[in-house]
């Protein structure tokens, strides 16, 4: 069983073949697109805070 299948099973997501294969393919496609950018992330690069994009904060404090 793959990691994806284990996660799906744990979360009660149906493992019907076509649908699940398409979902995993999409995740793998995303991983491939984002991989070069992950390499650019510096240790001090913080995620955009979930409830308050930095963009908003920056403008307010100017």
């Amino acid at each position, binding site marked *: 069983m793959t990691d994806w299948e284990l996660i799906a099973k744990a979360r009660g997501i149906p493992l019907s073949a076509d649908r699940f294969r398409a979902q*995993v393919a999409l995740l793998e496609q995303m991983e491939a*697109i984002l991989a070069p*950018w992950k390499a*650019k992330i510096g240790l001090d690069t913080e995620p955009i805070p979930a409830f308050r994009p930095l*963009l908003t904060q920056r403008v*307010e404090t100017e």
Partner: protein
Amino acid sequence: MKTIAQAAADLRAGRTTSVELTSECLAKIECLQPKLNAFLTVVPERALDQAQTCDQELRQGTDRGPLHGIPIALKDVFETKGIRTTCGSLLFADNIPERDCAVAERLFEAGAVLVGKTGMHELAYGVTSSNPHYGVIRNPWNLERIPGGSSGGSAVEVASGMCFMAMGSDTGGSIRIPAAFCGTVGLKPTFGRVSRYGVMPLDFTLDHMGPLTRSVRDAATVLQVLAGPDPRDHTCSKLPPASYDPVSTNLSGVRIGIPQDYYFSGVEASINECAHRMAVHAEDMGARLVPVKVPDVEVLNAVGRLILWVEASATFEPFLSHRDQFGADVLNLLDQGRLIPATEYLQAQRIRHLLQQEFARVFEEIDCLLTPAIPNLPPRVGETTVMIDGQVVDAHLLCTRNLRGFNVLGLPAMVLPSGLIDGLPVSVQLVGPAFDEAVVLKVGAALESRSTPIGSPPIE
């Protein structure tokens, strides 16, 4: 078809009343609703009562401003006290809120008359507005075509004269897609510019609220009413609103960026021509066109999709034990989001940070970015792929490809009609720096004044 500005002038000159305007809209709804399915709920008695009050106030010298007595509609994500608010979902089919959302409060305070709640894609999570529970919403320009989504009902109503303005929400293009497909103006303000208090959420960091209107000036009028701080929404900016009325159409000194990559590629040639024509209009009116290279939009869109999947799944996870209450497409997306590890989500948010910095550098060179809004004409109902340059492309991805990134960046973006192709509207998108809706509206008003109006949809 009249704009808000024209109707407001008629009201004050005594040429019409709010009751007359509202009655005309209600008559249109009665006639067109069976064909278009744009509304989930219509409130005729309440609307006429509200209109009578507005007329009485005007007679007594109380004028609440340019929206006083104007019939409007709200997408069914905006909570309205005592009026059913479904979010286009079976989960909330009997949801009668006990409060008005901030947007409704401000519109009602400004004298707007609510005629109803608009149909939408289920849970605002999709671009077709073909709702498995409440039916297919149809495009008034061609009933075989989708109106776009998720704010499909809002765009259909404004385009076909069922109201003067309808509010939408936009998480990956959901105001701008239907506005573009139905030939209206659609404005997604900066993240934090309009309060989300009392709006049923799809996503925590991508949802934006904004108006769909028949003119750019009308969009500015509505934003003026809606913009401003709201302590009940902690994502709402404390920055005071600017003056949004585009008083001048002189674009001297305005630098308009024309992307040299991504946005004009993979777009139908005739749609690109319309966008280029708008750029030429802008130049004729004094703007300087600046060729710009934009950061990696494919990554920007991937980041947006990944964040949306995770956050939307978190929003609706408590309901996922009721799997039979969801349509197949939405359930598939909600399952997709629950497969993503937390580390991937956080890396996407970190890349989002980098991309915001890169786009901020682009906006140091320009005041506004101009792109085609959507690369294709509205697909037919049920169509999941379309042909572009001989290639079969996923219709959903195509509709969002030029729009989604500005949700990720939180920047203000507006679409407005740029022409008609095969009897269907096509649009251009204008994007500004954070909290500079004013420049987007100014350029939009100038382009609108110069271009040939597309007219009204051929539906009676």
